[in-house]
Structures are given as C-alpha cells and as structure tokens.
C-alpha cells in the first residue's frame, strides 16, 4: 500500500505560465538552497567521514517526488510507493534499510532523512539527504563487514520511521539507533546535521513561494523537469546509436577468496529511448560486495555523464527519466535478493561509472575517458588510546583520476563530488598514529598522451595497538587505458613490522591486529592512460621524472630515454619510440592489460597474495 499523504489544505495547485526569467531565478534559488544544505551539514556534523570528507548527498524534489536539484536522483517516489503509513505536516522520516526503499540508499551506513515541505496544509516539495555514518553497529567497527553473509550481520536496520512526528522528536527512536552505534555521539550529531540541512531547504522553498506564489513555484518545478527532458531527448538522439554496444568490467574479489565478478552492460537506442541492460552481470555474491542498484539512480548517473560534456550549466534533474529504461536481472550482483549482505557495495558502485563511461564513449572515442579511481578505498582503525578511551577512524582514500580527452588525470584526487582528504595533522592529533608518508606513487598512473593520475602511497605508523579493516579493489585487474593509453598500476597494501617483516595484506580484510610501531603501506591504484604515450611531449615526460611523478624506468613506457642530467636523450628516445611503435602495431580503443588467466598465473608472484578462484554460483541464480 502506498503512503497516505495527509493534506489539510484543499486548494488545488494551478498550472500557470512561468516567464523564462522567473524560471531561471527559481532554478538559481533552488541551486543556492542545495549549496546551503551542504554548508549547514559540514559545519555541524562531527564525524570526519562527513565533516572532512563530505560523504553525504542532498536533494530537493517537487511535490510528486521528482528531484529538481541534487546529485543522485530521487528516491522519494520509490519511498512513497513502499511506505505504508501516513505522512503529516512536521514529520521527518528516517530510514537506512536498502530493502525498504528499492535501493535508494545502498547500505545501512547511509541514513536517509526525508522531509515533506508543507505550505498552507499541502505538500509542495520534498527535501532529503543521506549521509554515511561512521558506525551503525554490526559485527565490525565501521559496520562494513567484508565476510557478512546477510544484511543481519551489518548492524542497525531501520525501515522508514518517523524521527519527528508532527514536529516532535521521537527520542525513543534516536535512543534505539544510537545504542546500536559504537560512536553514538557522532551518530546523533551527524543525524541532527542532516535534519538541519533538510530544514534549511524547506525554509528556502517556502521563501521562494512567498516571493513568486505557490502556483508559479509548482509550475516552475514542472517546467524545469520538462526543460531537462527536452535537452536530454536531443542529447540521446545524437549521442546514442541504435546498434547495441556492450562493455564488461570486474570487481576483483569478494574478500572470501573468490573472484573476479563481472558487471556487464549493453546500451542501445529504440526511438527516443535509450536502454541500458545489465543482462550477463554475474549473480549475487555470498559476501557483502553486492550493490543494490536503484534504477532511477542509474538513470541519473547516465544523464549527468551525458550533460557534463554539453551544457554543464543545465541543472540535473529527474525530468528525463522516461527516456531511459534500465534493466537489471533479479538475483544479480546489482539486484541481489534479500537478505543478501550489502555493506561493501562501494566497489561496484564505483565500477559502474567506469562501465558507463566506456559505453557512452564507444561511439565517440575522442570523448572517452580511461578507467580510473572507480571506488573509494576505506581504512578503519579502532582500539583504545593511551587514556584508555575508545577511538575509531573511518577514512576514505583517493587515487588517480583517469587520463581524459581534456588532459592528464590529477594525482591522488577524488572522483566523488565534494570529497576531500583528511589532513594528516588532524589524523595525528586525534588518533594514535604518525603519517610517515603521504605522496602519490610514481608510475602508478597509466602511460598515455594524457597520463592517468597516480595513486596515493600513504604510510601509517601506529602508536597504539588496535585493529584495522580495509576495503579496496583493483588489486587484481588493472584499470584499463583507452585510445592507445596503457593500463594503470594496481593497488597494494603491506604491513611492515618493526623487525622488518613484511606482510602482504588483502584488499578486503577485517579485524587485522596491529601493534604500536607497525607500519601500514596503503597504496591505491592509478588512473588509466588516454591516447598514445609515444606521442606525449618528451620534455614533459622528463619534467615529470624530475618531479618524481614518473621514474626513469617508467619514462620508457612513453618511449622516452632520460640522460644522466635528467633531460631527454633525443636520439635514444627517437629510436626507442620507433622500436616500440613497430613492435606494438595499431592500438585498439581499450587496453585491458593481461588476460584474467595470465593475471591468475602471476598473481602470487606479483602481489604476494593467492589468486582469487572463479566464483561458484549457488543454485539457479538467474
């Protein structure tokens, strides 16, 4: 049964003509309101994950729930269909169970707040935001257990409940939720911050209505959606062909020794409509790497990638949704059946951006980007400090941005909007650790005319014993290059004991004991290269060698020989480039590096870790 909306006001909203100037003003006002939501959140949240790194996503939707400003597309519509209660003025909805909202949020760490915006007794808009809580209970600190077999091991699960009922905070619910968390104060502060942000949005919507009138506001929201629809229709016609294109990429492993897991997507156009079909994607995993992908969210990702190249001033919104058909097989990695574990979905979430980029670019390779930093590597470190107080760090790492048509990929940067790294002086001040090294790893970005960004080499020295968890990927299958660009280097992690013993650490591990004095090297992967590296300016390659971003040996991937003074050896470079060109032949669009079989064979030698074994599917998963 769908949600029952209690609206005491009985006046109808009338559709009126909105002059183009008012429309643009309302569009800008909404955009400003969204920026204000972020500002409010960052200033009042407590956890480093939100306040320093910005792991939260706001939106404002029109009265039927279609997102008009925001990033990840709307989930209000799905929520309204699934919620079987009443919604009244003053209510604030809280939920975190992905299975209760068709995957609008995709693991239980993300708490979603939904606020109906009432005006004269009627719902005129919605404000919503979700943010990643550092801890929501479950079997491991950070609530992201790699080996979870079901969502019941991942901590707090809230179906849609009323955090505020008619304006009254429901203390009981907050207490129940906080009690599950290892970091209850952070949970509470972050949750309040999200609510405050949504309230700001509601306030601004009301102000816009005061200024322009309710009918103009409602009509303007509709028109903004339609404007986006028209723009996308045009884009789809020109950029998507009727001939199907297909792309496959992989999640390296499941943290239990099996892998890789395939994500496959095929795209084609039928009339005005584009179809994105994930048929051929591997079945769901027995561990927590499943990603419950919401179809609408994927439509939004698709739209944003399309728009970014053409008119970046266009406001992204849900207006074009009926132009896109997303098909995801039931029981697959991207639509797992309840109660599959979901906590470590970050790898698949990231990977679909690489898949999407590859699909869209195949028709116009000059606009294609290489594979990149399509995940967000996590480190969790927890224990008791010298004062015997519990500490718990959740940190998101960054790596190389892919080589792209518009230039090199930056080193050690974030593909996620608004994310920043945590300053190392902050880490050292608040956690028992010294950061001995924080640099990009030379040569880790793929060679190309435009170089892929380097990954980060971060070395932690722990000054107290504790436990770490790691969530990372791209350690087995390298990020691919395009248009002649080479694949990037893979990620690796190593624990170095004070006695010099070195231990390779897997990409997905929990509860690894570390002692005071241990060093952890956490090295993320680079972005793939774009374009023929043999055509990159040799002087630029030499400069990057002097900068320490590329090594002398690495320069040879560009066919560049560096002389003893650090300059280009022109003659040797010419010869090497000629030789490489002849040996290589004409490069294809994609360079994936070695085959999976070859990677398996050399895995132990290359990485110090056993190769993942081919997953075996349970029963008759589709």
């Amino acid at each position, binding site marked *: 049964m769908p949600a029952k909306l209690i609206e005491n006001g009985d006046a109808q909203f009338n559709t009126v003509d909105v002059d*183009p*100037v008012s*429309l*643009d*003003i309302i*569009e*800008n*006002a909404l955009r*400003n309101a969204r920026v204000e939501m972020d*500002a409010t959140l960052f*200033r*009042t*949240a*407590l956890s480093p994950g939100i*306040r*320093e790194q910005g792991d939260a996503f706001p939106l404002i939707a029109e009265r039927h729930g279609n997102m008009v400003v925001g*990033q*990840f597309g709307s989930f209000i519509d799905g929520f309204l269909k699934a919620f079987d209660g009443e919604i009244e003025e003053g209510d604030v909805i809280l939920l975190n169970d992905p299975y209760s909202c068709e995957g609008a949020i995709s693991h239980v760490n993300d708490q979603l707040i939904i606020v109906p915006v009432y005006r004269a007794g009627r719902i005129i808009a919605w404000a919503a935001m979700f943010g990643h809580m550092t801890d929501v209970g479950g079997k491991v600190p950070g609530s992201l257990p790699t080996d979870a077999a079901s969502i019941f091991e991942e901590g707090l699960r809230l179906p849609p409940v009323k955090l505020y009922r008619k304006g009254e905070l429901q203390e009981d619910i907050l207490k129940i939720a906080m009690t599950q968390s290892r970091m209850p*104060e*952070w949970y509470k*502060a972050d949750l*309040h911050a999200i609510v405050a942000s949504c309230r700001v949005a509601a306030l601004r919507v009301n102000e816009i209505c005061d200024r322009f009138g309710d009918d103009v506001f409602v009509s303007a929201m509709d028109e903004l959606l339609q*404007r986006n629809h028209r*723009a996308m229709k045009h*884009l789809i016609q020109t950029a998507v062909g009727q001939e199907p294109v297909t792309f496959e990429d992989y999640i390296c492993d499941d943290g239990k020794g099996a892998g890789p897991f395939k994500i496959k997507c095929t795209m084609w156009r039928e009339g005005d409509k584009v179809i994105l079909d994930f048929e051929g994607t591997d079945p769901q995993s027995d561990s927590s790497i499943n990603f419950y992908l919401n179809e609408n969210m994927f439509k939004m990702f698709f739209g*944003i990638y399309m728009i*970014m*190249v053409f*008119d970046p*001033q*266009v406001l*992204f919104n849900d207006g074009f949704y009926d132009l896109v058909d997303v098909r995801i097989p039931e029981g697959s990695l991207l639509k797992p059946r309840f109660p599959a574990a979901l906590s470590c979905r970050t790898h698949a979430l990231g990977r679909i951006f690489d898949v999407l980029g590859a699909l869209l670019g195949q028709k116009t390779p000059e606009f294609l*980007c290489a594979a990149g930093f399509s995940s967000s590597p996590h480190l969790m470190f927890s224990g008791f400090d010298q004062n015997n107080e519990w500490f718990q760090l959740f940190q998101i790492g960054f790596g190389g*941005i892919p080589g792209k048509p518009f*230039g090199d*990929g*930056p080193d*050690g*940067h*974030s593909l*996620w*909007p608004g994310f*920043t*790294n945590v*300053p*190392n*002086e*902050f880490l*050292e*001040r608040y956690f028992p650790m*010294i*950061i*001995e*090294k*924080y*640099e*990009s790893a030379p040569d880790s970005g793929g060679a190309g005319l435009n170089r892929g960004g380097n990954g980060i080499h971060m070395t932690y020295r722990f000054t107290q014993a504790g436990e770490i968890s790691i969530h990372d990927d791209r350690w087995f299958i390298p990020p691919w290059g395009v248009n002649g660009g080479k694949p990037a280097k893979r990620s690796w992690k190593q624990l170095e004991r004070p006695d010099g013993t070195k231990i390779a650490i897997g990409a997905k591990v929990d509860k690894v004991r570390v002692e005071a004095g241990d060093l952890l090297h956490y090295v993320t992967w680079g972005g793939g290269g774009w374009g023929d590296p043999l055509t990159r300016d040799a002087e630029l390659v030499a400069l990057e060698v*002097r*900068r*320490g971003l590329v090594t002398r040996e690495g320069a040879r991937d560009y066919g560049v020989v560096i002389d003893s003074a650090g300059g280009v050896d022109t003659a040797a470079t010419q010869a090497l480039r000629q030789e490489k060109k002849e040996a290589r032949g004409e490069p294809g669009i994609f360079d994936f590096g070695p085959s999976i079989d070859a990677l398996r064979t050399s895995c132990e030698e290359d990485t110090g870790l056993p190769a993942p074994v081919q997953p075996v599917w349970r029963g008759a998963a589709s």
Partner: protein
Amino acid sequence: MTYRLGVDVGGTFTDFLLYNEDTGAFFRNKTPSTPGDPSEAVIAGAKEVCGAAGINASEIDYFMHGTTVATNAVLEGKGAKVGLVVTEGYKQTLQVARSLVPGGLAAWIIWPKPEPMAKLEHTIEVSGRMDAQGKELRPVDERKAREALEALKAQGVEAVTICLMNSYLNGEHERQIGQIAKDVFGDAPVSLSSDILPEMYEYERALTTVANSAVRPIVGRYVKNLKDELRGLGMEGRISLLRSDGGLMSADKAQDAPVNLLMSGPAGGVTGALWVAKHAGFKNILTLDVGGTSTDVALIENAEPRLVRNTDVGHLSVRVSSLDVKTVGAGGGSIAHVPELTKALRVGPESAGADPGPAAYGKGGDKPTVTDANVVLGNLPEALLGGTFKLDREAATKAVQTIADGLGIGLHEAAAGIIDIVNENMFGALRMISVQQGYDPRDFALMGFGGAGSLHSNAVAKLMGSWPVIVPNSPGVLCALGDATTRMRAEAAQSYSLRRSETSNEKIMTTLDELGGLVQAELMSEGVGKDEISIRYAIDMRYYGQGFEITMPVEASGFNERGLERLCDEFDAEHRRMFTFNMETEHEVVNLRAVALGREYNLPTLEIEKGDGNPDAAKLRDHQIWSGGGGHAAVIYDRAKLRAGDKINGAAIITEMDSTTLILPEHVGEVDPFGNILITPQ
C-alpha cells in the same frame, strides 16, 4: 593642517582622496591606471590632487594605499619562483592538495587542475619530525638540508618557504632550517609557516606561506619604488598599506607579509562604506560594489565588518583573515546568452571586460551585456563621465535584440530579463553573507557603490527587503575614502585544540597575554604610540570534533574568573542562532587570537547646503525608462546641484562624474545632510 591621502589602484582607474583632517574638506581625483607599473599613476595623481588642493606633498602626514599588486601577481601567475621545503614523505603536499575536484558528479572529466604555486621540481624534503604534541621525534640532518637548499638555489629559486609537519605547535625545526636557508640564499626572502600561519592543517599552512613567498619579491619592489618616489616628492609622512582585513600595516611589514594584501582592493570599499555609514547614522550595512566584471558584497553588523579566516583569490584559497567579501561574476560587462540546448537566459560569468567592453561603448563589442540592457531600458542616459563618454544606443539595442530573438520575447522584456537575472546573482551573493550566516537582511541598509552599484542597488534592495538604499557621494572613489579613514592593525593567533576540561581560565589568560604583548610590540615597531593602541581578544570555539569554528570575542580582563563558563554559554547561543541547535558534546578551544588596533580617527565630515526639499533646481530634463513591464516618465538630475533634504520621487536618474543612480518608480530618494541619497519605498 594635517592631510591624509587615500589612494586606490583599480583595473581601469586609480582613485585619490585627499582629506583635510582639521576641516573635513575633501579633494578627489581619478587618473587612468598604469598596469605596467602602478606606482606611475599613483605618483602622477598624487601630484595632481596636491595641486588641486594647493598644498605640497610634504604636507601629507599619512599616505594610505589599497593595492591589487599582490592580487594581480597571483591571478596572472606572475609570482616569484618559490622553493618549498617540507617534511620527508610530504613532497606532494601541494600536488595532491585536499584531493578535491570542484563541481558535481563527473566534473573531473572537464576540470583542469591548476599547477601548484610552488612547483614540484622546486620542492625538497628534509629529515626531522615533530609529533602532534610538538615534541621532537627525530632531529634535522643539517648537512643534508644544506645540500638540498643549495640544489634549490642552483635552480634559480627566488624565494623560500619552509613548512614542516606539526610546526604550528613547535617551529624549532623550521627556524633551524630557515637559518641555513638564509645562509645559502643571502638576500632572497625566507618565509616560515610557523610565523605566517601557526595553525593546524599542513596543506593550508603550506599554501598560505608559499603564497606569501610568491608575492614577496613583486610587492617588495613595488613598495620600495613607491616609497622612493614619494620621498622624492618630499612626502615625509607615514606610508601604510591596506590589509585584507580592513586594517592598515606599515610599508615595511607589508614587504614581509604581503599575503595579507590579497584582498586589499575590496577591503577599501568596505572600510569606505563603514565610514560613510557611521556618519549617516547606520550601523548595519550590506555593501554592493559593482564593477565591470564582478560584484563584491560584504556585511557590516553593529559598525563591525565580518571577518573570515580565509582569503580567496582565483583558484587560491589561503588561510589569512580578510573581510568577508564575496565576489560573483556579475557586473556591467557580464554577457547575456541563450544556450541552444536549454533555451534558458544566462548572464555571465563571461564578461566583455574593458576592451572591447559593452556594445554601447562603441569600441567594437557586439555581445549583449548588462550595461547594454541598462541602456535599452533608459537607466543609463546618453553619456557617461560627465558627458565626455557617449553611449551607442543603437549598438546596445542590436545586441540585446539577439537575446530577445533567442527567447522569442520583446526587446524591452529581454533587457529587463537580463537585469533581473544579474540582480538575482547579486542577491545570491548577498544571501550567502546574510541569510546563510543567520542574519536577517531586513535589519540592514544596502549601500551601492563602484561604477554600477548605484544603478542596481534599488532593485536589489527590493529583493532583500534591505532599506534604505544608501548612495554615498562619489560612489566611484569610495575605496580611496576607505583607505584614508581606517586604522592600523596587527594580529596574532595560536593553535590550541584543547577540550574545556583540559585547560583552565588561568592557562588561557596567560596565552592571551602573550599574544597581546606580541601584537602590541608589532604595532609599536611600526611607529604607533603605546597609548594609541587598543587590544582585542578572540577565541575560536567549537564542539569537540566539529570541523567548523566560531570566533567569539572575549574580554581578557576578568577572564580569570568565569571566562570559560561565559564563553561556552555565548558559543551555545551563537551556535543556536546559526544552526538552530546545540550539542551536549564538550566544547573545544581551537585557536586563541589577539588583534592590536591603532588610534581610531574621529574625523569631521562636511555638511552640504540645506535645501527646501524640492530638487527641481538640480533637474536636467525629462526622460523615459522602462520598468515593471511598461514605460515610466522619469526625471534626470545633476547630483552636484542637489541640496540636503531634497526629496526625489522615482522614477529618477541622478548623474554625476563617476556613476549613475537609478531610483525606481514608487520609491523616493532623500538627500541627507552629508549629501548621501537614502532611497526607500514610497
């Protein structure tokens, strides 16, 4: 007689304001700027204004100067070649930055990453390490450091920055290496991060110190030239430069810490507005400084402009106090366009600049700009600059017609649309500094200045509900007025980062006293008498673990007693005002601050002749403007002939040498005793 000369160097004009401290008389001057060497225009114009006042340069006691020399060096990438010294393992601090890609999802596809200010090949690592308590973990290897510095010198580095991990707690290693750097580099300036910004966060501290180093040589040369030439004119008075925070500092100090000058230009407008507001009897002001390519806005509450802890210039965001001035790319030259894909009306941020400028300037520009829309609507009469600068109405109409055609609407509707959108952009900037900070704009008056501020301020005030609109005399030279009327300032801060339970009233008091002594000594060394100095203290507070601090003013005297308790109560109240809630989490004392201020000048100001309320004597002629969907009869007045008490009913246009004021229909402008026009709804 005591004379003060304020000089503001802008992109197009250099403005002068000579002020007789004893009588309150003003002399104004405007000369074209000389971007090659800005001091040329300064000297030439100073001579002219002295001539007009009939005085010798030797009679000027105070020379106060707002300059964009440092700003332009950053924006144009003309800073010095800076060598950066960092802790081992941190070579790429500026390369990796904060990992942030600006913009939304997929913005990385089109984002061009700017090059670091100190190039990676000019960055060296040194051994030695402090921990997060300021204790030494490993000593510096001086021999290796010297070798690395010598290698830097061989690369032609012109200025050195040293920024080591945790030096905000203990700068000993930085000083040690700084000594070696001075040995190796001789005269080249050496900046230590523990001097320039002793605050946590290695990237921000490094960047700020590098920015300081980058502009040091260029500012140093400029200040030295200027000083020599002024002395050559016989000017013996004190030379001061306007800091980003609206205070003055001596020319010598400016040469050491020029990173404080990055917002010197806009700060002049704010201090000028402050001075005008004080005399007109207003304490709460929003400023709207509209130039050719951009608009600066600021908030003044209770006669105090808001300060922020960072200064943003282009890509650069450094941790230096500045007046909270927000800039949007909306000005007279902003270009309107209609994208093919969406058929939306967009204005800016692209600008026609000064060359070719708006179509109406007749210098070859054909893109429709905000100025052209104002011409089409009749808001700008036929000529500017006292009649010397003719506007090409036909060209403006032709340009705006392209927008009308693109949108399928009439010419006047399109022009009004352009103005509405640009006003909306200014409104957006004003909201960021008011509503978003918890202030109600209806409690503020709006002051419009700069070339086009008084043309837009009436309309923007309507959006904001901020009344009255104050249009000061000569809005075009308000910055120079600000330079001439502000006071000396020095500040110091100490990173603290202790929870309330980890410190005490006494401990805080001790540190505040130390900081107070530091800033007092600094001003005294700049020639300010001890009895002229007042010291203010502030403490940055937050809930433990929050990422954002609120700066709370505190009284040092009596802090011993209930200082912390009172501070926490006040912080809770402020937090509630800004964010609507409080937390039970413990309070954290983040930074301690002290500011020393020189004497505040109680300068007299001249009243203008009083009239009988009827402005007819100033009437130039009847006119027609387009407003609110139709034509309106309007009158054009000459500002120089207006008298105190005159009431001008909108629609009206008031012209003067350097700007044009628009009073909308259903509004009235009243001339106050000092000649300011105060506009309110009828």
